[in-house]
């Protein structure tokens, strides 16, 4: 019983410290993304982190980005803090629109940093017969695969 109590105390201690490290780690990864943008002679526009908890079923989190405000946005994704697979799909319309077209896809961002330009996305849109002028927002879906119930996060930073 006493051993159990000790084990419990140690587990609680480590999980609380671990959680704190997770949040701090995400903050560091956000500033690294910012640095990556500015060292590439781009202007930094902002960053959004999507936090989630892996579950025993696939889940989706969405982020909308207004794209008309700058000539050519560059999007940086950081999946360092996603332990299990997370796919990223880009669409021209929101989730509830059955006519939406998938414009781009990143198969798995887990443990990686990826860069995508709006040019690459609109090229695809034009190929489908879309008018890039009409594309005022892109809708990004994070498809979070099944995994151990740990916390995860994907950060998206915008540059132009």
């Amino acid at each position, binding site marked *: 019983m006493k051993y159990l109590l000790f084990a419990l*105390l140690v587990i609680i201690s480590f999980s609380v410290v671990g959680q704190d490290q997770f949040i701090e780690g995400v903050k560091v990864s956000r500033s690294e993304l910012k640095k990556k943008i500015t060292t590439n002679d781009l202007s930094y526009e902002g960053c*959004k982190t999507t936090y989630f908890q892996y579950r025993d079923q696939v889940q989706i989190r*969405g982020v*909308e980005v*207004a794209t008309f405000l*700058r000539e050519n946005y560059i999007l940086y994704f950081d999946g360092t803090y996603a332990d299990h697979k997370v796919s990223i799909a880009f669409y021209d319309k929101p989730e509830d629109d059955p006519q939406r077209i998938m414009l781009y896809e990143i198969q798995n961002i887990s443990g990686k940093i990826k860069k995508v330009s709006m040019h690459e996305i609109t090229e695809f849109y034009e190929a489908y017969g879309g*008018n890039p002028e*009409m594309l005022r927002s892109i809708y990004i879906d994070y498809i979070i695969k099944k995994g151990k119930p740990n916390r995860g996060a994907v950060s998206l930073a915008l540059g132009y």
Partner: protein
Amino acid sequence: MMNIKNMILIGSGCLFLYSCNSNEETAATDELKTPKIEVETDDVYNSEEYEFILPRPYTLVTSFDKVGMNFEASRMNDPANVDQYSTDGMQLMNMGVFGSDLVYAITNNQPQHSIMYFNAIKKLGDKIGMGRIFNEEELATRIEKNIADEEKMKDLLIDLDEKSQEYLENNQMRMLAAIQFSGAWIEGMYLATFDIEEKDQSKLSHHLVDHMSLLKNAITGIEAYEQRSDQLSDILADLEALQTQFNNFESLKNTEGFPELTREEIETLATDIHKVRNKITSK
């Protein structure tokens, strides 16, 4: 027996050490832990199913550069009004309004006005409870020092905006960032819709149609704030009416390509935007 006692002591020690470490942070962020605005939300570090990257005042205002915005100080919200906003929602919304005014002053090389608007934002920040963000990394001092330098201000305003959004997120008030955005959005639209007759109608129409696509996000943000005052509810109703009015414009209904608003539609839109904006900035 001693061993077990020791083990319990070590285990407790682990917790104590963590709590000491955490207490230092707690003391440093005491103000952050006791926000003046109380809102019930989900776990801070568990994002909503759907989120929107909120454009900053700098981006909103400068995206109208190609249309042209002549500087006229009287068009901005009077910084003296800062004391009249008493509810949380109206304080945040006018913080957004002043944010766009500050950008308008900076990009038009008006350092005197810029400092006045920065002070108004700082004062509202204090009222809301996020006053300490201005002291982090001497942000306020750096802003005051560089207020006449647009390039440096561009970066400093990003820092200010990130800290204010981080404050709202850390204090489970993420949704309130959308209210601040709504104020910045309406002020950008307001400032862009003066001197219509002097502007290139086609360019102005294009920018207004683009920016109107952000209105739904402003509406969603205000709707999510359940503790909104009657005044904020009234503004929400006006914004919804603005959206309906816009969607019913003939130019939007009868086009397959990018819509071009008629002069009459631009004027109608401008009148409605000015009406809502004046309601936001009035007592």
